């Protein structure tokens, strides 16, 4: 088998394989994000463009099309991956790295004709955008900008996380497993302060169980399994009432289920 001769294609193949390995094997999310982004938005497109337009110089328009082709290949790849039900990290890593390597190998086979010396002399070096003239003042201003934008995101994120307009205690009673008389009763404190709860369980109005002091801090929850003392037939209502902070006059929450019946 012929070795890859173009240095950029060698780097491309190495980058594709490394990115795929990192995406599947690493737990570092920043590294995985970088590698994932390169596989989705650059490497396959670059390989494809090297195959399709081997003589094109790397310019801004070339770079844009490279990313666009990467997106296109990724979308087409997704349509193929779904056929085998492999739209997971391994599936994507294998697909995109394989496509990149295959296109790079094919691009290497399409020999790039050497430009005549006169044309080489006339071809100006091109970059994505000119990078000349970034002064130290501009660098400092850009750094300050980044810092300010970082602060803006921090402020917005902090506010979004802290946003809590309503406070609620969740109370529930749901079936447990397949048994028609097995239930789970639960309380979750999503309020601002710790609270003492009491729960009373009735069957057709008769109290059959009670939990007098359930102290929950914000974010904490309490659950308990219940097996109702009834035959497995329909039509008996089990109702649970929640009381808060020793106020037994006010039913804070109510839930109920039809005991003995399953849908």
């Amino acid at each position, binding site marked *: 088998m012929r070795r890859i001769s173009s240095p950029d294609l060698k780097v491309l193949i190495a980058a594709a394989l490394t990115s795929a390995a990192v995406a599947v094997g690493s737990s570092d999310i920043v590294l995985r994000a970088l590698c994932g982004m390169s596989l*989705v938005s650059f490497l396959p497109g670059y390989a494809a463009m090297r195959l399709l337009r081997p003589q094109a110089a790397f310019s801004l328009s070339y770079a844009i099309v490279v990313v666009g082709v990467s997106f296109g290949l990724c979308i087409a790849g997704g349509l193929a991956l779904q056929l085998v039900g492999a*739209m997971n990290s391994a599936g994507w890593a294998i697909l995109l790295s394989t496509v990149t390597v295959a296109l790079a190998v094919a691009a290497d086979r399409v020999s790039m004709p050497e430009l005549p010396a006169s044309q080489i002399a006339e071809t100006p070096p091109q970059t994505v955008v000119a990078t000349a003239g970034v002064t130290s003042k501009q660098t400092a201003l850009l750094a300050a900008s980044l810092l*300010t934008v970082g602060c803006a995101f921090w402020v917005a994120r902090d506010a979004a996380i802290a946003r*809590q307009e309503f406070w609620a205690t*969740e109370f529930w009673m749901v079936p447990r497993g397949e048994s028609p008389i097995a239930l789970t009763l639960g309380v979750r404190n999503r309020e601002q302060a710790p609270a003492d709860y009491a729960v009373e369980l009735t069957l057709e109005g008769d109290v059959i169980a009670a939990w007098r002091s359930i102290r929950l801090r914000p974010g904490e929850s309490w659950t308990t399994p219940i097996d109702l003392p009834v035959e497995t037939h329909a039509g008996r209502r089990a109702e649970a009432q929640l009381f808060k902070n020793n106020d037994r006059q006010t039913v804070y*929450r109510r*839930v109920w289920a039809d005991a003995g019946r399953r849908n």
Partner: protein
Amino acid sequence: MDGAVTATTGPAPTDGIGARALRRVLQIIGVGQPADIAELGAGSGWGLLAHVCLTASIGLLLIAIAQAGGWRNSPWSETAYWIGTATIVLPAATRITWPRVARQERLGLVLLLGLAFYAVKILYSPIRFAHFDEFLHWATAIDIMDRQHLFSSNSLLPISPLYPALEILTTALANLSGMSVFASGMLLLAVGRVLFLSAIFLLFEGMTGSSRVAALACTVFMAGSNFSLFEAQFAYESLAFVLLALVLLTDAQMKAAHETAERSAGVGLWPVAGLLLLALAATHHLTAYFAALFFTLLAVLEALHPGSPDVRRRVAFALLSLLAAFGWSSAMGNPTAGYIGPVFEQGFQELYRLLSAHGPARVPFVGEDGIGMPRWQRGTALTAMVLVCVGLATGFFRALAVANLRLLVADGRRWKIAAQGFDSGTVLLTLLTLAFPLSVLLRLTKSGWEIGSRLETYAYLGIGFVVAVAIAVFWQGPSQCRVRAAGVAAALAIMLMAGAILGWAPFAVASRYKVSADSLSIEPVGIDAAEWTRRWLGSGNRFATDRINRLLLATYGRQTPVTTLQSGIDTSHVLFATKIASDELDAIHYAGIDYLLVDMRLTSALPTLGVYFEGGEDAAIHANPPAASALLKFNALRQVGRPFDNGMMVIYDVRSLRAPH
């Protein structure tokens, strides 16, 4: 195209005061005028880009502070927000219009402005999706992540899984990176925005040979009302526009290669064009159809001139775009006819009634809740509209002249069209502006505003170009006068501000919970309830609930909300009727409803955006907010369970009612 084409038409002005006035008007609007675009001197380096970066970042910080204040209903938040926006917009607009600015700086300014607008959208909700359309596509993405295959159903937007390109890209990145769908989507859309702006910059630059016009055109495009929010959402249109710009750029590159000796390079671009058109077809129906129509018209324009060397390529490109758009749609079972058809039909019927003075119009600048925009916002929006119209009036014929298509007043008696080697792409882009008045009229109708809004986005590709030509040739011209540049900058800034106002209003600034107000109705208690359903009821249950909780249940809860869009069954009365009658029981039976989620907060107000559930719901439910007793009527049914109660939201288990009655 080679060869001159001339045509004569219409009466020509004769001498006299009227004729002289007409001639002056024609001169102002550029009829028969050449379009000499000046570059205003060549700058060098990055100029003041870093300075503008800093002012934009300060603007973003102000906006972040405003949003933080908004959640607490601080009275200053609105003011801080708009000052922040102006801090972003004004320096960038000023610098873009300034003389002697280098190409790289102009491009940098365009990208900076575009990304700053995108950052504004992220700052609104930096930790989770917040906007209605985003939930629709997030639901599809979640399905792909969970099931590892495409085309599963999405009751919120049934057509979304059939156009899954955005979700494919996002879930690919999410799988590879380990990031959430939200983070992956936001990152991809940021890259997409850079691609889009760079592509249209190069496109406009290629058409005019001027980076100045390109930067101005991009800036005017960004002043469209959809740019700041709608095209920044995690929704299929956002990616579709990126792909559309890339297809246009590829076409331009092929044309350039065709016109030079590099035909082989052009051949290499055919697979690229095919791939991008396929990707576009799998992304968004309307944009794919627009691309097909655009390239078909381009081929027709080219074919008007026999002998044009580009006709065959244009025809082939048009066929490829038609094949991609309609081929994909056909493969998906032609879902668009049933989805878009009724919207178009109703929209245009309303437009007809509006134009014939038989139908009611939407009141501009007033929301569905009857609350109007502040005066300064209305003034800014109206001023921007006037500026766009003036720009179009003075740029339309000049833009055609850029394309070598000139309307001449010949021999004082007749008019003549001189079309010597005109550029079809430039002509078509200019003609695209004719869609603008239609989009404005459609936005005045109750059903057609959505079509008008979408149409405006496409029209703005042409509007950006035409207004930029008007500035570069007429308003600012070759003048290096800074006062004149400042005047143009002020006009651009007003247009950009108006775009942000119209795009975001009335929800630009965060505020406390409102009933049925999309992003303002999504808050942690609702999210917790949806997550509770997933944890304790399992996923995939069929829920009847209101518009907002549908979004939360489908995404955080992984449930299947029952929607009229998918099932054809209206379940609004199941929740809002004061009594349970056979209609309600039938709806539960036929829609196969497992659970009802009742949000007691709906009793506090009428829907801010005009609907509690979805468009087309019974108008009678908008007379008053629903009564609490109506929402809680299922308490009285013995066979109905009540598994969840958090004080604001109650879930009823109605599976026992699904049997036929």
